[in-house]
């Protein structure tokens, strides 16, 4: 009776260790659909031109890194809507601190990661110790960061040295460094979630805070650590973005909609808003889907503003495709 009750994909999982999240089928469909659109209505060169394919990946790096962090907090049944401003803060701080001087690079990087860790710590503390709903808490901390940022720093002040820009533009052999970083972050995220005690406890706390408590898990600490990890990924995204831009501005985060898009790609990837399930490979597929859509829009020459419209619609529909089956009322 038991062997039959194990679903087929479960057996697959125990043999391979990794289960292919269903979102990958969706990624294939979107990609094929995009290619057809490209051939019918544009130059049709996505498939023939490898640089366009690489560009899809590079476009996905900034979002992908922060989405991995978002996956952590969402598995823990929390959320981080302040990532966009953490990204901005990183970009601005980095270019201000480096001032084009290669010698200042290590110091600046350490400093922005420390700031990121503090932001994550504060988010985590507000959520766990002050018991503030994580949506509201991180929306609030996002506002606070935005206020300080816009009040203190001007656009494109300072710059990053050329050596640092290698992060965004150089390749290691045939593979761009940025893509290596993305893959490294995803693999590291997968490792932490699947192979460490912290990962196991995060799923536990996210699945049921009460059960986690009864099992002796340090529920608050687990969620706080998840928030710190999320903010650190936002910092890494910010570093990548500033290496591409050469200089930071306060609007880079919110303009990239990294807050909403990281949530949406995580949800598409199969991580529930209610926590306790999901993983980074699903999220990666969600990010790639967004990358493909973005590239196809570019190929088709869709107007920038119209693209924003589509992005909004896609985010809503992406989340809706998972939420509409839920029995609980949303508010």
């Amino acid at each position, binding site marked *: 009776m038991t062997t039959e009750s194990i679903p087929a994909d479960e057996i697959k999982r125990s043999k391979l260790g990794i289960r292919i999240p269903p979102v990958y089928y969706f990624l294939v469909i979107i990609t094929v659909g995009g290619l057809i659109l490209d051939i019918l209505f544009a130059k049709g060169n996505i498939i023939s031109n490898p640089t366009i394919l690489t560009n899809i990946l590079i476009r996905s790096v900034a979002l992908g890194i922060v989405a991995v962090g978002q996956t952590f907090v969402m598995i823990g049944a929390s959320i981080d809507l302040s990532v966009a401003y953490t990204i901005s803060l990183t970009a601005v701080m980095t270019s201000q601190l480096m001032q084009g001087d290669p010698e200042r690079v290590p110091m600046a990087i350490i400093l922005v990661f420390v700031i990121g860790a503090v932001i994550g710590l504060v988010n985590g503390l507000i959520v766990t110790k002050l018991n503030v709903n994580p949506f509201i808490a991180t929306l609030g901390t996002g506002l606070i960061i935005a206020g300080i940022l816009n009040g203190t720093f001007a656009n494109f002040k300072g710059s990053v040295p050329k050596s640092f820009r290698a992060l965004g533009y150089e390749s290691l052999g045939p593979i761009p460094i940025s893509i290596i970083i993305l893959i490294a972050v995803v693999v590291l995220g997968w490792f932490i979630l699947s192979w460490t005690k912290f990962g196991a406890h995060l799923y536990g706390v996210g699945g049921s805070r009460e059960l*986690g408590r009864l099992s002796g*898990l340090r529920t608050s600490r687990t969620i706080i650590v998840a928030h710190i990890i999320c903010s650190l990924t936002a910092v890494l995204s910010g570093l990548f973005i500033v290496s591409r831009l050469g200089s930071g501005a306060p609007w880079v985060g919110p303009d990239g909609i990294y807050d909403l898009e990281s949530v949406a790609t995580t949800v598409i990837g199969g991580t529930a808003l209610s926590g*306790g399930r999901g993983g980074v490979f699903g999220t990666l597929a969600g990010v790639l889907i967004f990358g493909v859509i973005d590239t196809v829009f570019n190929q088709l020459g869709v107007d920038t503003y119209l693209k924003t419209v589509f992005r909004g619609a896609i985010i809503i529909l992406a989340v809706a495709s998972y939420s509409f089956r839920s029995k609980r009322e949303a508010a």
Partner: protein
Amino acid sequence: MAQDLMTEKEPLMEVRNINKAFPGVQALDNVSVAFYPGEVHAVVGENGAGKSTLMKVMAGAYKSDSGTILFQGEIESFNHPVEAQEMGISIIYQEFNLLPERTVAQNIFLGREPAKIGIVNLRQLNKQAHAVLKEIGVDSMISPTALASSLSVAEQQLVEIAKAISLDAKVLIMDEPTASLTSTEVKLLNDLISRLKTKGLALIFISHRLSEVFEIADKITVLKDGQHVGTVNTKEVTSEDIVYMMVGRVLDHYFPPLGSSEDFGDVVLRVKDGSNNFLNSVYLELRKGEILGIAGLQGSGRTELAQALFGVVPFKSGEIELRGKPTAIKNPFWAISRRIGFVTEDRKAEGLILIQPIRDNMLLAIRSLQSLFAFIHQDGIRQSRNMVSALGEQVDIRVDSYGKEAQDLSGGNQQKVVLSKWLASESEIFIFDEPTRGIDVESKARIHDIIRGLTKQGVAVIMISSELPEIIGMSDRILVMHEGTIGGELPAESSETDIMLVATGQNNHRTSSISVDPERGEK
């Protein structure tokens, strides 16, 4: 003789003079019980008797107000369930206690994963889980890598027992372990309990099923209203003795008299062959002026039946006649506008708008029938402006102001507020799901009087309850549900044993008792 030996043993765990109060209720009143190794100890009592509270105090989930806990002769004071767990006291709660999206092995060792420098050894984890499952003899049934959500309820319980065993539990507490199991699954569990007993564990379980208690328990402790009535050796008592201990002498005055034939009128609600995802071919007739009791085990479809009749999860097929006219009950609004009221099982989650004033709770249903843009009246509706105080008197709510938030009331008063909500909307068919769960004895009696009073005014009542004394004491007819359908109909004042036989699917005289026969109730 064996019992004599047992009592001479040192108790493994003992509670002495435990007191625990919650706002408005003395949940435990000077309770002392001893539990011995190699013994199965059942704790019985009505809902609200304090069984679960006692178990939670023993497992460290609650802290008692006073009294001592002894474990292996030492005085212990647990600040956290984990402390009790580490000592060897494990508890399996009634609610779901596994993470559905995690594997069996991950669930068993949650918080105790075999790991080096924080990295879990997954092979080791699965191996250890397999070993534990093997220890309790279920390794052929349950794979360590199966997701918890893919297991049946019984299998999930076995996993929880495996978890307790892996914790080296010496005392294993189970809160109604068999409440939602089929009879074969119950047998499986009982076998396991016997095996664990021979290993010298002290097994403690709460149960509502006396037949099962007599089957496997060595000792029975009876609690009533938070007090320890007594602990007896199973072999020395009969189930009548236990029932008597559970309800005491109050029984005679506890329930209002049953309805008489002149109270009963026409059939107001008739369901033929009603089915949906949870229910299978339900036949039911409800007459004016009667209380139709619905008994059945947890998971037998009682609440689902109520939800179907109220349009929350409607029937997908079958016929419904409401007051003689064929119809379909589509949603709660529709049901309410046809004067059906539903007093739900979970007051806080489904019955009350907790941070709103009492008066708005009372008027919630009647207002939902009125136009959205109609002006409101503080204490009533346009046609009747002083409903609130009249209702309050009718159901005997004792509060200083109807402006008080519903969350600040005691359980009994909250239930009265919910009741008055349906009185306000002039319901003619009332569905009660566990009307007196978690309510003090006095309010309980008051609510029973009110329910019977309703029938005298021509209201038809369906009353679901897992408390058999309540079913027997209140019902003019009893339907017993079993696996999503009506297992049989029994007349008023049937015995607990008769009801349990149908509820557990052991009645072989199905055809004779299943027929929906209005005459039966009049006996």
